[in-house]
């Protein structure tokens, strides 16, 4: 029992959260779309980033694994006042997760939230996952899993395995887009030192998609 405990502790210690901007760059390198974002060090900077369009503010810390559960995300901030209030609130809440940074992100239109992820299995190596995402991940547990690298056939069979297949990929175009995305993620997983990956949510909207939150554990 003790051994298991030590092992888990050690593993936890070993896994490191990749810095958000680095993670974002890595996605770009593999042609995986993610929403525009920047670190801001004041409410003013955040307002400048927003450029009069609604934004999201997040407090990013290696110590806070569930941002929404910890109240570290404020969405749909349009006016300067909304941005300033939200900024101050996040800074206050994030005190117990020091060190932290505040990130501003363009607001993505509503769409279908999915999760694409990866992890290393002790026995079979790197795995890739796709499922219904956002707040539905844990509730419906509707996901498909494969060993990397995957083929296009694998990507297609992952989609067809999902109960939410018709929701996630309602037409041929969406199907092909998501298949290609899965192939890119599989490629990224096997060619990089990644232990765990969460793109959750990744929002499907207007015939395209954007990874809205990125978590890469090395």
């Amino acid at each position, binding site marked *: 029992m003790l051994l298991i405990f030590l092992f888990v502790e050690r593993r936890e210690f070993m896994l490191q959260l990749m810095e958000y901007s680095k993670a974002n760059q890595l996605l770009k390198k593999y042609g995986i779309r993610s929403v525009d974002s920047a670190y801001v060090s004041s409410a003013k900077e955040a307002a400048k980033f927003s450029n009069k369009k609604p934004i999201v503010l997040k407090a990013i810390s290696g110590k806070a694994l569930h941002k929404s559960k910890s109240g570290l995300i404020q969405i749909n901030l349009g006016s300067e006042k909304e941005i300033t209030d939200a900024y101050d609130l996040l800074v206050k809440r994030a005190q117990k997760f020091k060190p932290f940074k505040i990130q501003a992100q363009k607001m993505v239109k509503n769409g279908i939230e999915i999760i694409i*992820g990866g*992890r290393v*299995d002790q026995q*079979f190596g790197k795995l890739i*996952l796709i499922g219904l995402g956002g707040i539905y991940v844990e509730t419906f547990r509707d996901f498909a899993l494969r*060993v990397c690298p995957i083929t296009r056939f694998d990507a297609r069979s992952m989609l*067809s395995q999902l109960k939410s297949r018709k929701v996630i990929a309602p037409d041929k175009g969406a199907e092909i887009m998501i298949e290609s995305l899965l192939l890119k993620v599989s490629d990224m997983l096997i060619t990089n030192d990644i232990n765990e990956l*969460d793109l*959750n949510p990744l929002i499907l909207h207007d015939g395209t998609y954007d990874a809205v939150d990125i978590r890469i554990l090395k």
Partner: protein
Amino acid sequence: MKSSKMKYQDLTHILSPKSVAVIGASENPAKVGHAIMQNYVDVGFQGQIYPVNITAVDKIMGYKSFKSILDIKKPVDLAVISIPAEFVPSTIEQCGKAGVKGIVVVSSGFAEVGNQKLEDQLIAAAKKTKIPIIGPNCLGVMDSRGRNDTLFLPTFKIDRPKVGSVSFASQSGSVGSSILDLVSGEGLGLSKFISYGNASVVDEVDVLNYLAHDKDTKVILYYLEGVKHGKEFIEVAKTATMRKPVVVLKGGVTSAGAGAAHSHTASLAGSSEAYEAVFRQYGFTIGNDLDDLLNFGKIFDTQPLTNGNRIGVLTNGGGHGVLATDAIYLNGLQLGAMSKESQTALRKTMPPIVNIRMPLDMSGEATAKSYEDALTVLASDPGIDAFMVIALFQTPGADEKLVQSLINFSNTKKKPLVVVCTGGSYTKSHATILESAGIPVYESPTTAARSLMALISYSRYRNKVEA
């Protein structure tokens, strides 16, 4: 990831030996070595049998005995070792000197009881002698063609299946022996049986690789608790499932250690999900219990593959037609659609009370001829990929003639055919004849539909056709 395997162990001499030494053979019925010897005699092994026992004098069960494997001085393909665990490593080394080509260690008392040191000694002896070793702590192997049988289960207690083309592999001895008994009951024919216990030398990768290439094995049924070499398992699986269907039942699906997840992905996809992913990705057919292994085993053994999922249902009971329709759609299949030509042809042969539509309910008056006519017409209908024929033998028209008609149709192997028979002893006796003629019979439309879906899914994998 664990250290990688260099190459796969060759099990040919273990499964198909020309000569066998039973080390630990005994006249004493209380000894495992006695049961093993007795079985070699009972099942009629055609090769040489050499009983070996350190206390041996003269003959054991009528065969000239030897004090040591080294005293035989003739070629020995397989040594079956059933002696106290502590003497096993040195005996393996003697087998090496005697030129033995394969070993089954039946004895227990190794890593499974915490004696890792002895297990390590056994592995070291295997490395030194380069002999493939199955076990320890196992039932061993059976080849029904070569009548090679290392099982220490007396033949009167457990049925030996007829000779056939389904092979079964299992780490566990108890699951292995119960499946043997069940296989005999289902009328399935057995090719090879391998129970490999601790998997200390020969492991799941070697077993799968061997069965994949064994020409007498058409279908592999595999009870698996775990895999030691994941990457190699995948490599072998890719080849195996392209050659023949592999139905796998994974024991121990409750995953441990999922508590420490930092990501949604890790919390969703634990070790047991990873196994399932591997099985799906590399073309295994996943069974949920032993019944699935047998039910899927018999359809794979006897029926041709098809990518299409449109099922033609013929029945002599309306209610069963409804149940079949439900089972079909609940399992990802669909009812076949009859062509205009078929409908016209059937209208001519069927009595007026029969509605010409799917499911084709020919009523309780249906006879062997009704079934024959319907199958003849629909066999060439492009809208039907496979048949589920419901034969309720309680009705006046269903008798041994119906059995003969179904067998005649089945022998054409045009399209996959499964038969559903629900009932008591009269039904069962007819079902048995159907099964011995190579027609899979199921007691419920649900089992029949699940088995058809297993066949179709595998076929689609083989042909890389997505649903």
